[in-house]
């Protein structure tokens, strides 16, 4: 490779805040990653809940009790927001993949819409499934 300084340059996202001013685009981008990685745990928990339901009533009560305890509820609530955020920002990515919405004012606006929509969808989901 022609790039001889491979190991020494600041790498995204670790440059944000130290070398590079945080912007809505970069911050939302890293949140997309963080929510994606975090949902690995959410997915494993949900699969565990399904396996418990498939195993028997006693084991299901244990798994369901854990997921609906106050800490479980908190984790599920955070997972729900992560899901809606990743969903909204994912649609934003797919829109970009079509080659649209790349102007600065457009990415800022779609970023704000993503933040608001993920919060609204989270609250809406909680209200509907309660």
């Amino acid at each position, binding site marked *: 490779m022609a790039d001889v300084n491979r190991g020494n340059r600041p*790498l995204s996202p670790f440059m944000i805040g130290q070398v590079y001013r945080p912007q809505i685009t970069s911050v939302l981008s890293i949140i997309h*990653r963080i929510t*994606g*990685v975090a*949902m*690995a745990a959410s*997915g*494993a928990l*949900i*699969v565990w*809940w*399904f*396996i418990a*339901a*498939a*195993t*028997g*009533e006693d084991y*299901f*009560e244990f798994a*369901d009790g854990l*997921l*609906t305890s106050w800490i479980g509820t908190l984790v*599920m609530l955070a997972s*729900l927001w992560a*899901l809606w955020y990743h*969903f909204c920002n*994912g*649609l934003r*990515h*797919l829109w970009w*993949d079509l080659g649209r919405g790349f102007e600065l004012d457009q990415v800022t606006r779609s970023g704000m819409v993503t933040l608001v929509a993920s919060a609204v969808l989270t609250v809406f*989901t909680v209200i*509907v*499934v309660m």
Partner: protein
Amino acid sequence: MQFRTDRQRATGLGAAKEGVGHWWNQRVTAVALAVLVLLFIWPLGSALGEDYDEVLETYRNPFNAIVAILMFATAFYHLKLGLQVVIEDYVHGKAMRTALLLANTLLCAFFGIAGVFAVVKIALGA
């Protein structure tokens, strides 16, 4: 002797030797998940914290079961692709990177298949 021309061996492949397969599969699963999430979240949210019998009944419904099966299969494949990129971006030691990539592939396959199995078992009468 090489029977394939240089051009033929290079067509469709980038520097990573797999072309845009990874990128494309991530997008295909993303489009599928955009729909599946909307169908998966409501019955799941309602079933969480419900009685055992009601949960079983929810996923004995063929529509809910099929959505859940598609969701697990697609989501864990999408997760595998995404985590792979994160590992490739941030983990640089060869041994650690290989170990994590292997663990990622195996664990995503495990949870995806386990989830599908659980739904099938419930749907066909656990």
